[in-house]
Each structure stands twice: as structure tokens, then as C-alpha cells.
């Protein structure tokens, strides 16, 4: 997949490097002016239903194998479970998960598993869009993803402020579809770049690699000295936005604003238990961002498209996931944040339950959209439950199908977002937060059984 972030200076248009859009006067910038004909476009949040304030989305890009993670099928035989034939019991009676996730097995009371996710599509882009917008593509509209919608309802119009945007991606862009859709680039995610496991987490715009704080300050002074036009017009109101913008920018560069990304402020032992990998430290960064008040964070974990070397990859990646996610859940819980933070973990689809032993796969799994799993925790989701069942081999949904719009709609409810509200549309078309019954979108119903 081509990289959206080309460090030779070209940046493609898709969803990167968008930092806060508050002008000096606190007024929202719009680069889409034609909201005109929509009657009421003020996003509303239903305070009484509100349980969650933030969302951490752990996106397992490529489509993680459901039977090798959260829905093991050892009884189906080696052609289905391969060498992973001994799932472990979790600390919740009756729930078992992959033997490669022992740490998560001890925390099953904190999360619930959806084993009947379904949409039926096996294409990365289509499935990624479907899972994250709740809608199938192709009806002429490009819907915004859940992060963009949360950014709309919980972002600057809802009183969120500051240069760190309300929708952040750690650390590389997904690149499968336009997350902001018709809402426009204002709601695109801010992709941090950099690597939180490095000495300095070089978040785009916050840390300039190779430039010390001392030099940052010195050259700032130089800037002030040579800013001749600015110095000649000290009282000109037309330069107020320019001047105020500098103060805000430097709060991030040299001030406290950027400290949220400084992981050296955390205890070593905690950093180690997250895992000293980019992914592990991204989970820690996400917890800090939640504390900072950021409403939506995606951690983009790549490498799950295991057409080949499925089991080798599982042996490598699952321990990393295990460490990071279990630490994240316990860390959030210890700090009293889990009740107000939704965590959801999964990818665009699952993987073929029947192992592809033959060449060229040699023990791989393909895409599998008809039935897959998701992990959800916190923010009003109960822990220790299983929603839905797959069949004996994990190939089809057996009971209680859950479509993407069901999961997304449930999250919106917990966030206090009115799922019947209209979304602002540049042409004033009638489009809604979640699909209405007359749109003909398949639904299995909201996750009432695990929503408190």
C-alpha cells in the first residue's frame, strides 16, 4: 500500500497532518461553505445517555484471524486451528481465547467479545470502509468514519480546544479510504508520524528531528528580531491572527502543550509492561491522550494480512498485542478511566478458518468477511460477556449477527451522540449519523446485552 506520508516533501491529500483549526478568535474555519440548506446542523450530544468521553480504537490492519485470537476452534481439527489447538481459559468461566494471549486471558472481566461480526465483504478497502462507517460503499455518498463523526460531535464545536486535534492516529495513516468523507478535510485525522518507542517521539509538528530545544528557542528569538513587517505594524489588527497563532504553536513546540507526547514522563516499569515496541508505546500514548481529553484515538497496527506465514506471524504479533492491550486495560482501569473510555479492537474482517496449507500460501489464511470477531471494553460496555456465536468451524454466524452499524451505533449511544441526528452535508442532503430503517441497511440490533 503506498505510503501517504512521503518524507521527501510530498504529502498526499489523504488524511494526514491536519492540526487544529481554531483561528485566533476561536472561530471555526470552514473550507466547505455550502452547508447552507440543511435545517439544523448543530451536532447534538445527549447528556443523559453519556457514558463515554473518549474512544481508543486499536485497528488491526489487514484483517486479524478471528479463530487464532478471540474465537478459537480446536474441535474443528488441525485443518482449521493449525498448531494453535490449546486455547486458554480466561478468568471468566466459559470464555476461552487464543493460547497466545495469556495476559488478556486474565482480564476477560474487563472486555467483551463479539464473535458474530459480519458484513460478508472480502475487499480491504470496502471492508475497512464498512466496518468504520457502518455503511456499505457505493450509494454515491462517502460517509465519514466513526472517528470523524466523534470529532464532529465532541470536537471544536462541542467545546474541545487546543492545537492537538480531537481525532488522532498513531502513527501511520490507514490509507484505505477517506476517514472524513463528505464532512471534509477539517475532520480528517491528525497522523502523528514518528515512533513513540524512540528516545524522542517525533510527533509531526511538535518535535523537529535534529533540532534541540535550545536551538528552537534561539531561532525563535531570531525570528522575532527579523520579523520586520510584524515589528513595523505592532498595532495592526490584520496581523493579530498571525501573532496569536505563533503563541499557540510554540505552546506545542516548547511549552506544555506538547508534553502529552513525551513518554519519558512515565515510569520505566509501566513503559516496559506496555512493551517497548512502537505499538506498545502507542497504547501508552493513547492513554495519555485520553487523559488530555482527546475524544478519538486510532492506533494503527499493521501486518495482520496473513495470507502467508499465518502462524509465524501470530506467534510474533499476538504476544505484542497481548502485552500492550492487557496493560492498556489495566492502566486505564487503575486510573479510573476505563468507565469513560471505549476501547475497541479488531480489523476490517477475519481470516479463512480453513487453513490454506497449499502453495503458494503454505499455511496461510485469506480474507473472511462473513464472520469475524471484535473486542470491546470500557465506556459503558460491560466486561466478561460474549455476544453472538459462530458455527463450529468459525465460518458463518450461528446466532446474533452484529453488523458494523450495530457496533458503531452502540458506541455513539454510549458517547451520548444522537444516532438519529442528521450529519451536516455540503449539499444539504439528508444523511444521518446511523442508517435509518428505510435505508435498507442490514442490522442485527444494537449491543444492548452488553451496554450498561
Amino acid at each position, binding site marked *: 500500500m503506498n505510503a501517504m506520508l*512521503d*518524507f521527501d*516533501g*510530498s*504529502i*498526499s*491529500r*489523504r488524511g*494526514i*497532518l*491536519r*492540526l*487544529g483549526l*481554531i*483561528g485566533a478568535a476561536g472561530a471555526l*474555519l*470552514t*473550507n*466547505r*461553505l*455550502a452547508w447552507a440548506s440543511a435545517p439544523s446542523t448543530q451536532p447534538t450530544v445527549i447528556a443523559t445517555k453519556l457514558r463515554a468521553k473518549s474512544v481508543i480504537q486499536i485497528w488491526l490492519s489487514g484483517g486479524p484471524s478471528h479463530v487464532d485470537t478471540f474465537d478459537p476452534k480446536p474441535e474443528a481439527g488441525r485443518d482449521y486451528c493449525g498448531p494453535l489447538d490449546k486455547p486458554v481459559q480466561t478468568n471468566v468461566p466459559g470464555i476461552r481465547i487464543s493460547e497466545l494471549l495469556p495476559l488478556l486471558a486474565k482480564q476477560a472481566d474487563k472486555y467483551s467479545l463479539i464473535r458474530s461480526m459480519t458484513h460478508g465483504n472480502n475487499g480491504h478497502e470496502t471492508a475497512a470502509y464498512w466496518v468504520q462507517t457502518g455503511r456499505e460503499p457505493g450509494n454515491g455518498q*462517502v460517509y465519514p468514519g466513526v472517528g470523524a463523526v466523534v470529532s464532529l460531535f465532541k470536537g471544536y464545536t462541542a467545546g474541545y480546544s487546543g492545537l492537538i486535534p480531537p481525532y488522532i492516529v498513531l502513527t501511520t495513516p490507514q490509507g484505505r479510504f*477517506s476517514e472524513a468523507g*463528505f464532512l471534509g*478535510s477539517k475532520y480528517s485525522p491528525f497522523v502523528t508520524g514518528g515512533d513513540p518507542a524512540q528516545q524522542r517521539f517525533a510527533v*509531526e*509538528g*511538535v*518535535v*523537529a*528531528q535534529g533540532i534541540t530545544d535550545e*536551538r528552537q528557542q*534561539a*531561532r525563535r528569538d*531570531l*525570528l522575532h*528580531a*527579523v*520579523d*520586520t*513587517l*510584524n*515589528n*513595523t*505594524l505592532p498595532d*495592526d489588527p*490584520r*496581523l493579530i*491572527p*498571525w501573532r*496569536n*497563532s*505563533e503563541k*499557540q*504553536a*510554540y505552546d*506545542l*513546540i516548547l511549552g506544555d502543550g506538547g508534553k502529552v507526547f513525551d513518554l519519558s514522563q512515565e515510569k520505566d516499569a509501566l513503559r516496559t509492561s506496555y512493551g517497548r515496541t512502537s505499538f506498545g508505546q502507542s497504547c501508552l500514548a493513547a492513554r495519555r491522550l485520553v487523559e488530555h481529553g482527546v475524544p478519538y484515538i486510532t492506533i494503527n497496527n499493521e501486518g495482520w494480512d496473513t495470507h502467508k506465514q499465518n502462524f509465524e506471524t501470530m506467534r510474533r504479533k499476538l504476544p505484542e498485542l497481548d502485552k500492550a492491550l492487557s496493560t492498556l486495560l489495566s492502566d486505564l482501569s487503575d486510573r479510573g478511566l476505563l468507565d469513560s473510555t471505549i476501547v475497541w479492537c479488531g480489523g476490517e474482517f477475519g481470516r479463512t478458518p480453513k487453513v490454506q496449507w497449499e502453495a503458494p500460501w503454505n499455511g496461510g489464511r485469506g480474507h473472511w468477511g462473513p464472520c469475524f470477531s471484535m473486542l470491546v471494553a470500557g465506556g459503558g460496555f460491560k466486561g466478561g460477556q460474549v455476544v453472538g456465536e459462530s458455527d463450529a468451524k468459525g465460518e458463518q454466524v450461528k446466532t446474533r449477527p452484529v453488523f458494523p452499524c450495530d457496533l458503531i451505533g452502540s458506541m455513539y449511544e454510549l458517547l451520548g451522540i444522537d444516532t438519529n441526528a442528521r450529519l451536516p452535508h*455540503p*449539499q444539504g442532503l439528508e444523511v444521518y449519523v446511523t442508517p435509518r430503517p428505510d435505508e435498507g441497511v442490514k442490522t442485527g440490533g444494537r449491543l444492548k446485552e452488553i451496554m450498561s
Partner: protein
Amino acid sequence: MRRIALICGLFLLASPAAFSGPSAALGAADVFQAPGYAWPINRIDPFVVAKWRKSGITPAANCSDAVFLRRVYLGVIGTLPTSSEAREFLLDDDPDKRRKLIDRLLDRPEFADYWAMKWGDVLRVKAEFPIILWPNAAQAYTHWIRQSIRENKPLDKFARELLTAGGSNFRMPPSNFYRAVQSKTPRGIAQAVALTFMGTRADKWPEQRLDGMAEFFSQVGYKSTGEWKEEIVFFNQARAATRPSHGVFPDGAEMDVPPGRDPRQAFADWLLSPGNEWFARAMANRAWFWLMGRGIVQEPDDIRPDNPPSNPELLKYLQGQLVADHYDMKRLFRLILNSQTYQLSCIRADDKASAEAQFASYPIRRLEAEVFIDALCQITGSSEDYSTETPEPYTFIPTGTRAIALPDGSISSAFLDMFGRPPRDTGMQSERNNLATPDQRLHLLNSNHIRRKLEQSKWLQSVPMDNGPSPAAITEVYLTILSRFPTENEIQIAMRYSESGVVQGREALVDLAWALLNSAEFAYQH
């Protein structure tokens, strides 16, 4: 007699006593101002001066040569001068050099690129939603616009070709005028026509008035062909035969369009007839807006009775000139650019609220997004790659293409979006957002994107230095980035920085370049 009186009047104005300009003791301000006024005898100025006299407004001083140089380069061709172009102009002692520079810039090839971009904003040239021209058609449309500007097509001919266009969106590019609308209904088209050619928001008109005008656009047909995404715009004669048009022009005159006649022709005839002020006024006002940063009617697409021109006599004069010059856009530009009014400095001498509306100083405004990134690329010797992945097939713009030359509003970049490039959804001037915001400043100050441009700049690496930056090196940096010579004080500041020990060797020059690129002087047209 009248002319002598005019000249005497101007002579009086030229004496310092006529206006108490900014005080003399402004060392830094001398960078931006020139002593005295160099009033070219230009017939625009008396209209402006008359208003100042009437309201007791004090105008700014004449702008300096350096300011003039940068201002006209950016204003006429959307491009920074190179350091040698700057050096040459600033050291030239020809008293006529400003006029000659204007003529040279009007003939530069970049002129067509830049003004095709500006027209593209107005005409909504974009491939994608919600305009949906389709990439091939958007590019063909831009090429046609650019070619029209290159050959200095008279504006009335340009307008007529657009208004009466028919044919394939790929092969008859002006037909895209009827496709570059959010709503292909007669009302939707009429609103687009009013906005583009009359500078007016017809959606605010009484319904009856809009419907009367919409009649002239009620026989536009669209049909597809066997070719993927080709669309033909045509005069639907068959429909017209059964349903004749009874149109009402915006001035109230009515017309029964004969059955065989394309009512759009009738509208074009009305709009472009000699006595009709709508078109000439809108075009003259827009030209003034484009060059001066503020329309005589402001906003330039909001002409209506309760939004009168701040200087009706000036507007009337410009209108008249445009018509007399057969709608020659370049001649009108030349006229405006050569006025003293255009050449005032940005340092206000009067902060009365009315001074701005009466053009008593040059209004500073942030560089347009495309011009900004092109300038950064030109200075550092780098380029941007533009591409779009929707719709398929992907479009890749050749490396090195400048942003002002992008042929399709849908092809953008994170930088351009951040800096307010208009999405071209409506064609309104306000879609372009030149407000300075914190995320823009953060990007310029500290992004990898800009940092790499500076660090990898072969130009910066090749500026001759001793152990540290020399005055000559500092001068070269100033000429390249700010298009002017540094003052003695500025040279000292830069030398002191390099001796401070915070940075080594060439880093001092990089930081100087960084600082200048992050200054208001660079970011603002002034």
C-alpha cells in the same frame, strides 16, 4: 482646462504638505516606504483622492521599490522574483522602471497559469463531488481557460463562449460551464450565471425574478454517449418547440424567445449589449478586487442595491474604460497597477474605519495557498507531487508542476487544504480562506515537510560562506526569500546569531532562512 486643473491638483497633492504622512523617524518602515509620492499621471487616482479629501482621510506613503517589486510579481503572476530579478530591479535607476516591470509581468507565461487558477476558482473547475466535472473534462476546461487568457481573449467574448457553449465536455471545454454547477436545473444555472458574470447572489432575489431569468436556461439538455463519462450539453430544440420560453431579464425587460432560438443566446445578447452595466461592472470590480485585495463593491460577488460601491465614480470610470478597451483584461490590469493608489504602502496613516474602504493603504493579506507552496518550492529548489486517487483511474500530475498550474480543484495536498485553498464548490470568492491559523504556523515553524525542504535545499547549501555567513551570503538569502536587500541592522542580527554558538557553520544560514520564511513579511502580500 479641466485637464490642467487635474494636473495642478495632482501637483498639489504631491507636495508633502498635502498629506501628513507617517513620521520620518521609522528606520524599519523605510524598508516598506519611499519618500514623497511618485504620482504617475493616472486617471484612477483623482477619483480615489476626491474621496479622501471629502472624508479627511490621510493616505499611506508611496511603497518602496522592494515592496512594489514583490507586490506586482505576486499580484500579477503569483510568483516570487528570483534573487537576480530582485537585485536587477532594485539597482536599476530608470525612473520608469515600475511601468516597465508591469509590462514585462503582463507578458510572462506564468500570467496565464495564475489567472487560469483565479478563473478556475470562480468557474468551479473541479472533477469531483459536488461539482463532478470528471478529471478529463476539468483538465480540458482549464486548458481552454488558460489558452483564452494567453491570447488575451476579450472578456465579453470569453463570457459569450461560455454562456452559449454546447458539445462534449471533453471536446468542447466551455460546455463544462453548464456542468460545473451544483444543480443542473434552470434555477441552479441562473444562479451560477448571476454569480459569475453579474457578481450577484441570485439566491437572495425574489423567486419570481430568479424564475424569470431561469427561463433563459430552461432548454439546456444533457445526454451521455458511448464514451465513459462523456456528456454532451446541447440546446434542446425539440423541447423548446413544444414549450416556448418567456424570459424576464434581471432588469425587468421581458422577452418571448422564438421557438427555434436558443434562449441562452438571447441572454448573452442582453448581458453583453453595450448599454448593460451588469457585466462590465462585475468584471471591473472583480479586477480591482483581485489586484487591490478589496473590491469597490465588497464582496465582489455580492453586488446589490443595499451594498453600494464605496467609490461609485471610480467604479463607473473603470467600467467605462473596460468597455472602451473592448473588454481587454490586461489593459484594465495595467491601468490599475500603474496607479499611485495601487502603489501605496501597507503602513496605514489613518485608522479611521472608512480609510480601508477608500483604499488609503494597501491591504495586507496572507499569501494564497498555491502561491505560498510554490514560493517555498522555488526558494528551496524542491517540488511537490500532486495526485489524486479518486476517482479511479488515478491522476498523477507531473513532478515539478506548480500549484498555481493545477488544472483541477480536486487535486490538492494537505498543505493546500490547510492553507485555505478553495474547494471550488460554489465559486464564491470567500471560499478561499487566507486567514492565518495556528496549525499553519505550526506547520511552517516545525513540520518535517518544511524542515526537509530547507535542510535539503541545494541553493542554501551552495550560498558561498566563510566560516560563518558573510554579509554577501545574508544578502543573497534576503534577496531570495524577501526579495529585498537587508538593512545594516538586519545583517548585524544575522551575524550575531551565527556567532552565538547555538549553531555551527551553515546551520546559521539555514536558521536565518527558516526565520525569514516564518516572518509575516514573507507570509503576507504587502
